[in-house]
């Protein structure tokens, strides 16, 4: 969801201007009321808002909602937690972001409550729940759609070149050469932002060494020096050197929709991006999205230990309960009764998202974009592993370093070895 920062910011500003976003300041909190903080997002906000309305109608407890735009929220929640104005239920990104709060003893574990209502935990895909599970305790529940990273491609460009979506990395490299010979940039890469480059490193390492390699890095920075990591980074650099991204990728920006337009106009053949790209294409380039937009999973790599069905991306975003909340029981009650309920899941689907619940498949059928959303659900529900984007899985200070090093790697300014040596130093 972080990747939709600009989109969210723009819609957020628009919503703020109409003053109809349902946002009420922390000062309005009545005692005993569960106060929920969430992101301001054109798709998500109405879903959460509806859940609050339903909750207030049904139960004895009351809840209220405040929403904030993405970047402002990140800073606000960091400072508000631990203060008297902290929310009772708060939106977070799971992984390293949530871990900060857990380390500061500010999040309530949900395990006891989930044990009393096992159907709630059971409703979610296990791979998605895992991202909010720290040290064996469940600290959050998925509350947005699931967003894996996949390849998008331009069917028209593929047909003109006589190409098929690749299954293996060797096929993929042949396609790169083919498109280069046709004077089409093989892959659009908005490389002015490091997180777009990170997707390649994530998939290469996952395919070569399996998801365990990144798990090891999260536990001990020395694991950056693993030969498989070096190899994955080398493959990133080789791909850039080969000209797969063209010569000017570092000037291309994701937020102004430049990269998506490259794909839509056929200047590029492929584009590796999170599934949020699909609704973006539907909005920005509707004709292309309806007729010529195809998608496939990241190809398998011969000899690699990772399974070809593994995914990386954003499993979901999460609601967690403030451990110091005065209304902790009520807050847990709200959370347990909301995010897996039929009403909430239906609303999520209506907003265009693919819920991270096991029953989503049947609910997606017959809805708009059923083909794409159904495929995404199939990928997520059958994925042996669904790793969270590294920059969100690890602590923010290390993530910042990681993204800077990646940009330098793609620009051929540092070697993979220098990269891992630098990362291994940080703890």
């Amino acid at each position, binding site marked *: 969801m972080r990747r939709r920062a600009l989109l969210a910011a723009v819609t957020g500003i628009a919503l703020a201007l109409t003053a109809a976003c349902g946002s009420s300041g922390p000062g309005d909190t009545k005692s005993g009321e569960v106060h929920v903080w969430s992101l301001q997002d054109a798709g998500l906000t109405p879903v959460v808002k509806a859940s609050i309305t339903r909750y207030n109608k049904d139960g004895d407890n009351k809840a209220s909602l405040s929403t904030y735009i993405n970047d402002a929220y*990140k*800073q606000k929640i*960091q*400072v508000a*937690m*631990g203060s008297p104005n902290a929310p009772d239920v708060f939106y977070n990104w799971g992984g390293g972001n949530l871990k*900060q*709060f857990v380390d*500061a003893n*500010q999040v309530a574990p949900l395990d006891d409550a989930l044990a009393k209502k096992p159907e709630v935990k059971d409703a979610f895909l296990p791979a998605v729940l895992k991202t909010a599970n720290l040290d064996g305790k469940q600290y959050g529940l998925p509350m947005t759609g699931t967003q894996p990273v996949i390849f998008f491609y331009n069917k028209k460009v593929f047909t003109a070149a006589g190409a098929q979506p690749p299954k293996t990395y060797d096929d993929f490299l042949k396609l790169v050469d083919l498109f280069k010979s046709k004077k089409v940039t093989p892959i659009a890469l908005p*490389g*002015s*932002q*490091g997180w777009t480059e990170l997707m390649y490193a994530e998939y290469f390492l996952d395919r070569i060494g399996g998801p365990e390699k990144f798990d090891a890095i999260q536990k001990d920075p020395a694991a950056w020096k693993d030969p498989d990591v070096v190899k994955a980074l080398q493959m990133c650099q080789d791909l850039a050197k080969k000209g797969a991204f*063209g*010569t*000017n*990728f*570092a*000037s*291309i*920006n994701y937020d*102004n929709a*430049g990269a998506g*337009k*490259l794909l839509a106009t056929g*200047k590029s053949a492929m584009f590796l991006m999170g599934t949020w790209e699909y609704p973006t294409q539907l909005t920005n380039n509707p004709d292309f999205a309806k007729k010529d937009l195809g998608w496939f999973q990241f190809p398998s790599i011969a000899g690699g230990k990772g399974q070809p069905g593994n995914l990386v991306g954003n499993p979901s975003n999460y609601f967690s309960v403030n451990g110091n909340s005065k209304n902790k029981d009520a807050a847990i009650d709200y959370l347990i009764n909301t995010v897996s309920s039929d009403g909430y899941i239906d609303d999520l689907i209506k907003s265009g998202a693919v819920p991270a619940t096991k029953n989503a498949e049947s609910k997606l059928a017959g809805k708009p974009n059923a083909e794409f959303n159904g495929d995404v659900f199939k990928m997520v529900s059958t994925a042996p592993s669904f790793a969270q984007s590294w920059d969100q899985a690890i602590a*923010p*200070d290390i*993530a*910042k370093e990681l993204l*800077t090093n990646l*940009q*330098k790697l793609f*620009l051929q*300014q540092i070697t993979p070895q220098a990269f891992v040596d*630098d990362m291994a130093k940080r703890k």
Partner: protein
Amino acid sequence: MSSVAAKERPGFVWAAPAALFFALFGVVPIVVVIYLSGTKWNGLGTPQWVGSANWSALLDDGEFLPALRTTILLTVGTWLVQTPLALLLGVWSAGQQRFRAVLSTVFFLPLLLSTAAIALVFVCLLDPNFGLAATWGKFLGVPDGNFLGDSGRALPTVIFVLAWQFVPFHTLLYQAATRQIPTQLYEAAQLDGADTVRQFFSITLPQLRNTIVASSVMMLVGSVTYFESVLLLTNGGPGTATQVVPLEMYKDGFIAFDMGYASVLAVLLVIIGTILSIVVVRATGYHRMTSDREGL
């Protein structure tokens, strides 16, 4: 005697409102930042006092010196590009030529736009595929339009955008100052046979000395703290090619949530900015507050 002095020079009371605001919004934050620079704090909970740990981390930080170097390059580049342009435009627009008023208005337009708007417009203009960079790049020797994504071109491009934005302001200063120069000086020079170029170097330039100092101090201290343009244009990239100290500070504070270390950089910026402005003012004799005009 004292009553005369009291009449001529208003007492401290006159300065009180300004001093109060300065203390509240200038001095207090600086003191707090100095305190934070001795703590470890990620924004959660209370800051932990760690003494000089953040300051010694500065010595190990491989990114600080390159960022400082980039900041200095940006500052010097900004001064070298903007001062001659602003000076010439200002002097020219103070004259009586035809269309001068119309053209001056056009020149001053960038001054009316917000920094963020300018940066975002340039991001679009410099898009290598869909912006002007795609079509104009080949005339500038950059056929692939890769201005902001090339390590060598990114900083000059930022300096260009900043110049586009700030030259009008300094032009305005020079225009006003040029108009203050007594016309008798030029009349006398003409009688002595001095041509326009000679007049510019012997009268205009010396008479503008104080304006040059004032404009330079603003430019230099301003470019040490340039932040939003760089953030929006390149975000310090590609790699760290345009990473300036204020941006580094922002990223440490609000991306990495390392408030202690970010405060160290903030304190350094305060020190650098102060020293810079003192040095410029001293070196140019501006602090003596002497007038340029005989008998005035």
